[in-house]
């Protein structure tokens, strides 16, 4: 196919974000909507002030039109994020168990629904930034352990994996070729 080479290597951040927007989130609607059967998902009937789970993309559309309030996920609070950060600092050899799409979801909610946050948005933004930096640093340290056959990325989120993927795949492939060149006779 005639698409740029780099698009064949990995997903773009925009594509990862598209996947993230299918995650469910709780909202408090301010108007009624009958239930909808879509190809991918089912949207439940919305009644004012009755909590419902909907995909993030719908929550953001409704929020933009001021038709709902978004209930922040449990982990997107200063206290919980601080706890994650402490875990990152304490365990230098593994990652804290953040959600699979934490960067994308926190970015979307910070931009679109910061008035629904129980904590101050700029504090959350700071901790998110700190978390991202410490995890990047760890991932980079982990690169020194690369080998030709195996890599373990427990608790890294999709976007973080996605960022490193083209690089790691190429390096590991070259390592595999190198070690195969001496082992091929034994097989």
């Amino acid at each position, binding site marked *: 196919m005639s698409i740029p080479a*780099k698009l064949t*290597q*990995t997903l*773009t*951040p*925009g594509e990862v*974000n598209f996947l993230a927007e299918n995650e469910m989130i709780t909202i408090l609607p301010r108007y009624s909507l009958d239930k909808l059967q879509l190809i991918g998902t089912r949207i439940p009937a919305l009644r004012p002030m009755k909590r419902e789970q909907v995909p993030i993309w719908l929550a*953001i559309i409704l929020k933009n039109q001021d038709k709902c309030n978004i209930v922040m996920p449990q982990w997107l609070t200063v206290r919980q994020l601080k706890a994650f950060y402490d875990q990152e600092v304490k365990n230098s050899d593994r990652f804290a168990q953040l959600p699979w799409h934490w*960067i994308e979801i926190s*970015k*979307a909610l910070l*931009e*679109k629904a910061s008035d629904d946050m129980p904590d101050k948005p700029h504090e959350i933004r700071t901790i998110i930034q700190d978390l991202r930096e410490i995890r990047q640093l760890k991932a*980079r340290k982990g*690169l*020194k*352990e*690369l*080998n*030709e056959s195996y890599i373990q990325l427990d608790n890294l989120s999709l*976007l973080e994996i*996605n*960022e*490193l*993927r*083209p*690089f790691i795949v*190429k*390096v590991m492939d*070259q*390592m595999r*070729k*190198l*070690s*195969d*060149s*001496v082992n*091929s*006779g034994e097989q």
Partner: protein
Amino acid sequence: MEYYDIDDIIADSQRLPVKFQISVPGLGYLEGNPGKQVSKDSRMELPLWLALILAICPIDDSEDSGQNFVELLPPEFLSAKVQNAIKSSPATIDLHSILPHFYNFVVKWCWLFEDAQLVQLCLDMLRERAAEINSRSSNSTARQNLDQINKLDEFEKRIFKLNYDSFKDLKQWLAAQHP
């Protein structure tokens, strides 16, 4: 091997010193003597793809049988001196000046010679340099890195670019407004 990989093809044409084991009539053009013979024990440089074939094909002839056409001489860039230099400072050595397609060449070389020690050396070097490349390509602008890039093997340049692009994409996306 990757058939369409241009770096692979270039690595294949890397010249290697060889010594002819027998005299071959009519092959003089290899050393600039068209029409003449190549005499026994003459030394010359042949591209890898030709040297390998001549080095592993046995001669099927009564008098010289069991011998190969050429003997491969250990090339300069795999000498103990170079290997020690790599071992002592894997992250900073100028790999491009040693050989622009070092890794690809080692893969081909070891396919024939099974030099496990050399492969181990390369693996250690690649691991060390990969970490260095990763942090450089994601931390500063391309211009600052020009010096460093010139010391990279062609394969390393490619992963440098890949990582630089990937990191830049993410940074741009994070800075942009949510649609």
